[in-house]
C-alpha cells in the first residue's frame, strides 16, 4: 500500500485490517471517519458491515491464485487461451445433441428388450432380456408386409418426384420462358401450405369412384391403394426436389447440352444422358430426402388406408397395430420402430457423402 492509494482502496484495506489484522499493513489505515466504513459498505451490498465480514473486492488485493477453486483456475486459463473454451463448448453441444437424438433410440432398444409386462421403471437398463421381441414382431403381425408397402410407396413417390422434378428443374433451371418467376413462386407458395389442408378434399376424391380406375382398383376408388399415398405425398415433397434440382441443372454449362444435342440426343436425351449424370449429388440429395420424408410421413399414411397390410397400409400402421384395445405391446412397438428405422439409416449412411456435398453445393451456387 502506498500513500497515493485511492481512499476507497485504503478504506477497504482498513476494513480488512479490522477483520483480519494479521494479514494487512496497519500503517495504511488513515484517519478515515468511522461512518465511512458504514457508507462504503452500503454502496457495495446494502448491508452494514459486521465484524468479521469478508468484503467484496477483497480478493483483488490478494495474490489471486492463492485462494482460487478449480473452476476459477480453469476460467482464468480459458481466458488466456480461448481454444479451451471453444473446445469445451463444442463437446458440450455435441454431447447434448448426441444425447437428445440417440438416447431415444437407446431407450427404444431397452424397451424392446424388456419382456412384456415389466415395462415400468426402465431407466438405463432393460428389466430382463428378451431379444425374441424382434422376432415376435413378425409373428404377431405381418410386419414385413407393412415394411414392404412403405418401401414401395416411398420408392414410387421418389421416382415420380425425381422424374417430374427433373423436368421442372430443367425448365426452371435452363430455359427462358414467360412467367418463369411467377411459376416458381407459385410452386414455393404451394409448398408452404400445410399438407393437412389438402386432406379432406383428397380423401373425398380418393373415395369417389372413377370409372377409368375400375379395371385397376376394382371399385374405382384410390382409397386403400398405394396411389392414395403416392399421389399426395409426391406432390407435397415435389417443391423441395424441384428447387434442389433447378439449382443443380442450372449450373451445367450450356455447351454440354448443345454438344449432346448436336451429337444426336433430343433435349430430353441430353437431360438424362448428360445433365442428370453430372448433377448426381443433387439428384441423390433430392431422392434421399424425398424417400425419407415419404417413408416417415404420418398423416396421409395413417388416413388413406384402413390399416390392413393387404390394403397397402404402411409401416406406421404396423407399429400402431401392436396397440390393441385392451393392451399395448410396448416392447413390440419399440422393436418394430427400430426395425423400421433400419432401411432409412442404411440409406443415409450410404448416401450421406452425396447428401452433404449435394446440400452444400446447392447452396454455393456462384
Amino acid at each position, binding site marked *: 500500500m502506498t500513500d497515493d492509494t485511492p481512499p476507497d482502496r485504503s478504506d477497504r484495506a482498513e476494513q480488512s485490517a479490522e477483520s483480519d489484522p494479521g494479514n494487512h499493513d496497519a500503517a495504511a489505515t488513515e484517519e478515515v471517519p468511522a461512518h465511512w466504513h458504514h457508507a462504503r459498505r452500503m454502496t457495495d451490498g446494502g448491508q452494514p458491515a459486521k465484524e468479521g465480514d469478508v468484503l467484496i473486492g477483497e480478493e483483488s488485493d490478494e495474490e489471486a491464485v492463492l485462494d482460487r477453486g478449480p473452476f476459477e483456475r480453469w476460467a482464468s486459463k480459458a481466458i488466456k487461451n480461448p481454444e479451451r473454451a471453444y473446445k469445451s463448448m463444442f463437446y458440450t453441444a455435441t454431447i447434448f445433441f448426441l444425447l437428445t437424438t440417440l438416447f431415444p433410440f437407446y431407450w427404444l432398444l431397452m424397451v424392446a428388450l424388456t419382456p412384456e409386462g415389466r415395462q415400468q421403471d426402465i431407466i438405463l437398463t432393460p428389466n430382463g432380456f428378451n431379444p425374441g421381441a424382434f422376432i415376435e414382431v413378425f409373428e404377431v403381425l405381418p410386419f414385413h408386409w407393412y415394411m414392404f408397402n412403405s418401401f414401395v410407396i416411398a420408392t414410387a413417390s421418389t421416382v415420380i418426384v425425381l422424374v417430374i422434378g427433373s423436368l421442372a428443374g430443367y425448365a426452371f433451371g435452363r430455359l427462358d420462358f414467360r412467367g418463369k418467376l411467377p411459376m416458381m413462386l407459385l410452386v414455393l407458395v404451394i409448398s408452404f401450405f400445410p399438407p393437412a389442408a389438402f386432406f379432406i378434399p383428397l380423401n373425398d376424391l380418393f373415395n369417389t369412384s372413377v370409372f377409368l380406375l375400375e379395371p385397376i382398383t376394382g371399385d374405382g376408388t384410390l382409397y386403400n391403394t398405394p396411389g392414395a399415398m403416392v399421389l399426395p405425398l409426391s406432390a407435397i415433397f415435389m417443391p423441395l426436389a424441384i428447387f434442389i434440382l433447378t439449382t443443380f441443372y442450372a449450373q451445367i454449362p450450356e*455447351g454440354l447440352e448443345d*454438344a449432346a444435342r448436336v451429337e444426336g440426343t433430343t433435349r430430353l436425351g441430353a437431360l438424362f444422358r448428360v445433365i442428370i449424370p453430372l448433377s448426381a449429388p443433387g439428384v441423390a440429395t433430392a431422392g434421399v430426402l424425398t424417400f425419407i420424408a415419404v417413408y416417415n410421413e404420418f398423416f396421409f399414411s395413417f388416413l388413406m388406408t384402413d390399416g390392413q397390410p393387404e390394403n397397402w397400409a404402411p409401416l406406421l400402421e404396423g407399429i400402431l397395430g401392436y396397440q390393441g384395445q385392451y393392451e399395448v405391446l410396448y416392447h413390440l412397438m419399440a422393436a418394430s420402430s427400430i426395425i423400421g428405422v433400419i432401411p432409412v439409416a442404411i440409406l443415409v449412411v450410404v448416401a450421406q457423402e452425396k447428401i452433404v456435398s449435394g446440400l452444400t453445393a446447392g447452396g454455393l451456387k456462384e
Partner: protein
Amino acid sequence: MARVQLEHVTKQYGEETAVDDISLEIEDGEFVTFVGPSGCGKSTTMETVAGLTQPTEGRVYIGEDDVTTLAPKDRGVAMVFQNIALFPHMDVFDNISFGLRLRTYDDAEIERRVEQAADIVQLEGMLDRMPGEMSGGQQQRVGIARAIVRNPDVFLMDEPLANLDAKLRVHMRTELQRLHRELGATIIYVTHDQAEAMTMSNRIAVLNKGRLQQIAPPLVCYNEPTNLFVAGFIGSPSMNFVEGNVIEGGLETNNFTVDFDPSQIPGVTVGDDVTLGVRPEDVHLVRYADSLASSTDPIDARSDVLEPMGDEIFVYLLLSDAETGSMDQDPATSPNQLLMSVTPDTAIEAGQDVDIVLDRSKIHLFDTATGEALVHGLTDRSEQEPGTTPTEADS
C-alpha cells in the same frame, strides 16, 4: 459433304435483333469463317445452322434439304465448341463415340471409327483418360475427334481455339487446315480473331450488328473492303481513316489534299463528304516515294510514338500541331493522325519532323455517310482514270 445455304435468316430476341436478314451460300468443301466483333451475331448465325437456335425468319438449307425446323441431331452437322464441352463424366473413348452409340452402330464399327478419328487428331493411347486429366489442347483435339468421327456433312466450329494459349492456338490452326485438306469437309468457323480468319479460310464472312458486311476471300476483304467497317475490322493494326471533302480536282482533308478527277469515279461528286482509307503499310516516308508507282504529294507530319514490333515499327504520326497527343480520338479515325508501318532498320525517332507520302494505288475512298466503298486505289495522276485494286493475290 454438302453445301450450306442461308436464306434471309433473321433471329430476334424480344426487341433485340441478333441476326438481321443474312443470306449466303457456302459451297461443298469450302472453309468459311464468320468473323466480327463480340455480339455481331456470328455465333447465333452458326447456331441456326446447327439447329440449336430457331431463326425467327428465313430458311436454312444443308445439301438440298430445307433443315430449318429439323432438330440438331437430324441435320448431319457436328460442332466444336469454344468451351470444348467434353462430357466430364465420360472417358475419351465414350466422348468420341457418344454420337455413334446414340445411332446404334455396332461395337466393331464404333471402335474402328473412334480409332481412326483419334489417329487423325493424334490422340493415340489416350482413349481411356478422363477429360479432366488432359491439357486444353488435348481436350480440344478430343472435341474435334468427336466431331469428325460421325463423318458429318458440315463442321461447325465456334471459336474452338479461343480458350487455348497463344502457342497452342497457332499449332491447332495448322492442324485444322490439315484436317480440312484431309477430310475435304465443309467447315463453318466462327472467330473474332482475324488472324485465324485470314489464314485458314477460303472465304471470310464479315458480320457486324447482325448484318453480313462482306463475304469474300480473305485478301479481297483485305484489299477491297466493301465498306468502312470491313476496312477497319480486317487488318491489324487497323486502316487509317481521314475524313475529307471532295473538291474540284481531288479530296481535301484537314491537312492534305489528294489529287484525282472526281468525275472519273462513279458516285462521287464535288462537295461530297468522303473518307480516305489507307493501311499503315501504304504510308511511306517521302524518301521511298520513288519506289512507288504513284504517290501523293508529300505531307508534313511529326512522329509521335514509336512501337517497335521486331519485324516492323509502327509510327504514330501527327499531321497537325493542334491535336498533339489527343487522347479522346482514336488514331485510326482521327483526321489529324496517321499510323505508319516502316521496316525496323528505318532511322526514325519519336518527335521527329518527317515528310510522308501515301501509295495512291492503295488508297480507298468511302462515302462518309453510308460507309460504302467508292473506289479501291487511285490511278496514276498522269492517266487520271479510276481503277480498282490491282491485286494479284485475289483467290
